[in-house]
């Protein structure tokens, strides 16, 4: 092979190197693009719709049984106190109920947080219909501000009969940059 041949090969190898390197960069970006894409899919399909009120279709109160509700409160790396005023409540499915949580910002600066709910057992989530909740929005607290905040909900009467205890756990996390 002569020198021109080598130079041609060197050039076309280099061109291919850059093309393939470009694919690598695009695919690295694609991995991160899956994050908003996933959120959109969840939003469109309603799979992870946790910050808007639920619709209640059946308001029949089922007085034949009571469900024990346990409320739990956590903070994640946040110097706040956060607790339910009544940690355990018994309700009939179909009954509109309100419970109150108390939050205090123990720091000397204003802070903003958001609460995320989770349910135990997981299955209970689709029967726990929240009409109003402090977790639907970000909550801002001034220095040492203390506030009581409600959750209004209905337990769907279609709740399976073998489910008689539901835990609702909130975790407050800080929303930075507010």
């Amino acid at each position: 092979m002569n020198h021109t041949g080598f130079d041609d090969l060197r050039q076309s190898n280099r061109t291919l190197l850059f093309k393939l390197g470009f694919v690598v960069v695009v695919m690295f970006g694609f991995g991160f693009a899956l994050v908003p894409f996933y959120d959109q899919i969840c939003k469109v399909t309603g799979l992870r719709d946790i910050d808007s009120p639920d619709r209640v279709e059946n308001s029949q109160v089922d007085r034949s049984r009571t469900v024990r509700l346990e409320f739990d409160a956590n903070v994640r790396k946040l110097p706040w106190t956060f607790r339910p005023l009544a940690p355990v409540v018994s309700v009939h499915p179909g009954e509109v109920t309100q419970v109150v949580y108390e939050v205090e910002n123990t720091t000397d600066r204003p802070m903003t947080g958001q609460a995320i709910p989770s349910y135990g057992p997981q299955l209970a989530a689709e029967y726990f219909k929240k009409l109003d909740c402090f977790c639907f929005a970000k909550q801002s607290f001034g220095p040492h501000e203390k506030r009581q905040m409600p959750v209004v909900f209905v337990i769907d009467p279609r709740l399976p009969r073998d489910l008689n205890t539901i835990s609702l756990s909130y975790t407050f996390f800080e929303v930075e940059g507010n």
Partner: protein
Amino acid sequence: MSSIPHDHAAGHDVGHEHAHHPSGITRWITTTNHKDIGTLYLWFSFIMFLVGGVMALAIRAELFQPGLQLVEPEFFNQLNTVHGLIMIFGAIMPAAVGFANWQVPLMIGAPDMAFARMNNWSFWLLPFAGVLLLGSFLAPGGAPSAGWSLYPPLSVQTGMGMDMTIFAVHIMGASSIMGSINIITTILNMRAPGMTMMKMPLFVWTWLITAYLLIAVMPVLAGAVTMLLTDRHFGTSFFNAAGGGDPVLFQHVFWFFGHPEVYIMILPSFGIVSTIIPAFARKPLFGYASMVYATASIAILSFMVWAHHMFTVGMAAAGQVFFMYVTLLIALPTAVKVLNWVATMWKGSMIFEAPMLFAIGFIFMFTVGGFTGLVLSLVPVDIALHDTYYVVAHFHYVLVAGSLFAFFGGIYYWLPKWCGRMYDETLGEWHFWTSFVFFNITFFPMHFLGLAGMPRRVPDYATQFTDWNMVASIGAFGFGLSQALFLYIVLKCIMFGAPAPARPWEGSDTLEWTLPSPAPYHTFETPPQVR
């Protein structure tokens, strides 16, 4: 970086250059020769195979009886995790790249890889990544214990061993990406005159497709573990539900990488088997073009099936059905390949030497693993069998009896060309039969355990699982010993083997057999003419 290695730039006065390379350890550290680098890759992967194998034996020793005997549960989980990571990223993938380094230039008539210095770098990143990964055992909190798939929330919560693992995965990913770019460029730009794409040996085709898969998905894995890292240390909440993230998102991103990854591990083996079978059946490969198209179809479909690893996360039924059907679809191109191999052997004059035994063993047991894969692709069955030993049995049939057996076959097949000496045929056949028997003793009972409900990744189990676990553990130690025999065979071949002729297998017809054995340090500096 230079795209033409300097030892080719001076390629005019060939013949006098051969001895002009450093000797001793410097030769191996500075080498840009594809044969040296191939050898390095293969030895590295063999050492990692032994390391991962010792971990597997520790796992099997603990599972010999119910109850906790040898290791603490935390350490057991670490062994499980690192065994998987080491075998995938340290053993199978580098071994495949080692084969590519040795064989791709020889089979297409190229003088070396396209980017020889980058090739050196691709390899020498690996030992550092391996040390980092194994070093995580010494970190506070030990090695990662979240399983090789590194699922959050556990992987976000564990100690700094996880950070070392994340960096090791980054480095190994960079190595794979550089290796793949090198392989693609070599194949597309440096084939001998006359070698059109559809005349390339099938091993070259499978590696071309594998390399494309690698550059498409290794960056996605790098992204996923980067997100884990920022979740751990920089306050992001990609996967933290409390912070508005979602741990299931990680599973989606991970398996978008993970499923193509399982084909990355098997396609080069398909290529090796497609090379060995025609040589020992002394017939051309049946359905060459359909093999190429089947490989490409498998690669394309592999991007559309990732969620079958996560049927139990609470996915919508429509999603489950979609992923189930696409998964079933992969059986078609795979069946094309298996049937072509069988048709190649049909009425062939077969000789059953070690490479052929491993290739036939591969077809037999890969098919078993493929069928259990079909069973698992069915949503209702998968929901019952998810995370049981049935899954462990399935992927060891395709990865050990699949990928690894093909590599053993490939090593016996090409050893005469690589080192110029023949291996001990009797011992090679012993290696096959002991590996074959002990493999099945180890992994076949795991189907029963899984169907009976034994979960994977547990150090202890209910007493009704005892008998089959004992059988599996005995098989595992037998399989481990068989690999010591393999090491002995290879060393004996390198040191005392009988001199090999240029073309020891009479059915072989690819370009490397036109060279003397052992292949000279520099080959095809004048490209051969392919008809």
